[in-house]
């Protein structure tokens, strides 16, 4: 069943190949622009929590499981296997972290979570690659099995333990933090001044240094590592070729099944690591149902990020921010955020005019105006709206930027060995 649905009459524009340097420069420019904008909005509205170190730190913690699931999805889909089962693999990861973390310590917890997630990936690979089962069907089934299995095993593992119960593990050991705490106080003081730009930079710095877990750093390293392996090594070229055109890859001697297996199993391991992060870092133990659909958000982040590591990271940070702001319950920042969104929409709309896409420009302009009206007319926003923000944004991005998105050409298609002819 096809997942790739090219829009009829609108051929997908090939992404222009830019030198890596200029692309990086563009990303930095975007980031700076957003930074200045947020700072400006903060000063204008007085919603200081919008980029306080606490809010940004919470956003980072919320973003890590999303980005791990997201680059997990990337490994799988770049090898041509759609992975709806990320959620289930993440659930397996939380359980693995709970069991191995409690009995054998932090490192075993992380490795055990990856192993459990990879096991889920292996099942997905066997079903989709060897047996040619539809990818979505297999993923849905894995999610059902994983949720049941985790609940069942949790009861078996944790029931009798002190501090544990049938639905949760005892408190687990926590991975260590980087020794950067000495920066926290001076940066905090600077942040308290609420100066334009300077205090924002201080809170940003504080967010990434204060009590930052090694696993957070590991996740960021894994994003970079994924980008390097998939786009700058021969192995990655072969893995991606399997996702783009398996028959061409096979005719050149690539073992298609092997690369698909590797992609899907690594995908499961990364989603499992995301689960471990939830159980070990974001919370202090395993709990039934603690993933709460983060696997799906990871999938959304990957799509939003156009099946690329950096894009996935940016999307995950964005989604993590909306999730965390939701939990902090700071309706002020939510409200101020409306202004940020309105301005961003208008700016992108103007860019669309320059790019001669009047329809999109008009739509974005109207949307921006609506957000502006929403900002002016109200003074608080229900937290339910931020909860759904990642999903709505992904849907909107898919709707309006479908031509800019390019998924692997053979993503979701079943390939049988030897059909290259």
């Amino acid at each position, binding site marked *: 069943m096809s997942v790739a649905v090219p829009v009829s009459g609108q051929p997908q524009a090939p992404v222009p190949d830019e030198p890596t340097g200029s692309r990086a420069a563009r990303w930095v420019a975007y980031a700076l622009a957003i930074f200045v904008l947020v700072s400006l909005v903060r000063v204008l509205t007085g919603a200081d929590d919008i980029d306080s170190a606490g809010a940004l730190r919470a956003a980072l913690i919320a973003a890590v499981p999303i980005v791990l699931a997201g680059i997990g999805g990337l490994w799988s889909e770049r090898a041509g296997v759609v992975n709806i089962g990320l959620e289930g693999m993440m659930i397996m990861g939380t359980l693995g972290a709970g069991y191995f973390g409690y009995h054998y310590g932090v490192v075993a917890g992380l490795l055990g979570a990856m192993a459990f997630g990879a096991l889920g990936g292996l099942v997905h690979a066997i079903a989709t690659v060897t047996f040619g089962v539809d990818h979505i069907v297999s993923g849905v*089934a894995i999610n059902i099995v994983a949720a049941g299995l985790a*609940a069942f095993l949790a009861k078996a593992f944790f029931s009798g333990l002190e501090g544990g119960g049938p639905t949760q593990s005892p408190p687990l050991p926590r991975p260590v933090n980087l020794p950067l705490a000495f920066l926290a106080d001076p940066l905090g003081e600077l942040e308290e001044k609420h100066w334009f730009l300077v205090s924002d930079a201080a809170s940003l710095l504080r967010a990434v240094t204060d009590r930052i877990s090694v696993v957070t750093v590991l996740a960021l390293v894994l994003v970079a590592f994924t980008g390097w392996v998939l786009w700058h090594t021969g192995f990655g070229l072969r893995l991606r070729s399997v996702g783009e055109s398996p028959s061409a890859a096979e005719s050149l001697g690539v073992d298609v099944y092997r690369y698909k297996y590797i992609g899907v199993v690594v995908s499961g391991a990364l989603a499992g690591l995301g689960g471990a992060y939830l159980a070990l870092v974001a919370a202090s133990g395993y709990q039934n149902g603690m993933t709460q659909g983060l696997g799906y958000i990871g999938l959304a982040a990957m799509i939003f990020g156009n099946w690329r590591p950096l894009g996935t990271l940016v999307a995950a940070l964005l989604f993590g921010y909306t999730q965390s702001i939701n939990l902090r319950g700071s309706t002020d920042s939510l409200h101020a955020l409306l202004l940020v969104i309105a301005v961003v929409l208008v700016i992108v709309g103007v860019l669309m005019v320059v790019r001669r896409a009047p329809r999109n420009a008009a739509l974005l302009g109207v949307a921006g105006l609506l957000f502006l009206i929403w900002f002016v007319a109200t003074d608080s926003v229900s937290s339910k*709206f931020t*909860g759904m923000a990642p*999903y709505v944004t992904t849907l909107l991005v*898919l709707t309006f930027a479908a031509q800019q998105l390019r998924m692997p050409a053979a993503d979701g298609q079943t390939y049988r060995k030897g059909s290259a002819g």
Partner: protein
Amino acid sequence: MNRAGNWVGGLLMVLAAPVLALVLSGIIASVLLLATGYSVGDFWSILLTAPSERQVVNILNYGAILYLSGVAAAIGFRMNLFNIGVEGQYRIGAFAGAVFAGSGWLTGPLNTIVAILIAMVSAALWAGIAGFLRVTRGVSEVISTIMLNAIAGYLVGYFLRKLGEQSGNATSTKDVPESSWVGGIDILKGSGQELLGLSLFAVVVGVLYWLVLNKTVFGFNLRATGGSETAAVASGVDVKRMVVVSMLLSGAVAGLIGMPVLFGDAHNYGSSFQTGIGFAGIAVALLGRNNPVGIALGALIFSYLHEQANNLNILAGISPDIVQVTQGVIVLCVVVAYEVARRVRVRIEQASVAAALETRRSERTEVPA
């Protein structure tokens, strides 16, 4: 091979896969129980104990709901449309229906009928978003329905808090006035449990599904599109229209899922309204190969397991979650088994065609004189 032999062989092939899947998942569940130190004997003896009359009625009630959910998913599956969003559509529909029925603008059966229509329409429109995005913007319905599921959860939560009533810890919509309730049917006297009146929707929907699929042009086009989209386009099927219409139909059926419980049992939509039925429906549809009778069997099997799970916990202390594992494994095994069976069939067909060609050629070379 004669026709009758073919037919029997085909039936065996069709049945072999699900039976194999059931056996395999039974083995996996047993291994899992052994590994975690539960009694495998208890598990099987409880699972295979004939259900009490009360349980039979429960199985039928839950089976009917699962059946509706299964048909909702199957309508899309028949034309290779992956409506993962039954869950969200069902919630939107049930909530909209409950709000309307509870508001008491109408009374009596009229209220019930209009509320059911509202549930169907709102669920259909919710599904229609995915269909619309697919045909106008090329957005994969898999992704959009996953997103719409999550959005539906938040939306319903938001409006439940806004429009609902607080009672203790739970929030729910206003109760449906008693005049609009739909009574139960006492099919097993003395069981103390009644079949929910609107469970009969399952029968109606099942018959309609079969009729539309097999006896109408629309149904033919639907199956043709599912079989080969390019062939369907070539023979003049408007695939875009088919996508939107089948999403709408799928959603409309999803809107019915909540109705039996809403009007027969709970009388409101609250935070305790059962979730996960949409995904179970997908599983049931896969188990029954999107066939009206097959889905019914699948729904009854799932419902039976679901009902027996309570006893597992009460009588043997076995976590009922094992049943969900079993259900998931059944689905995984059955799709693998179907795929293997399909490959075997293709190979047999290829071999028989090759053999037929071979004999014809040899006949031709033998006869020239």
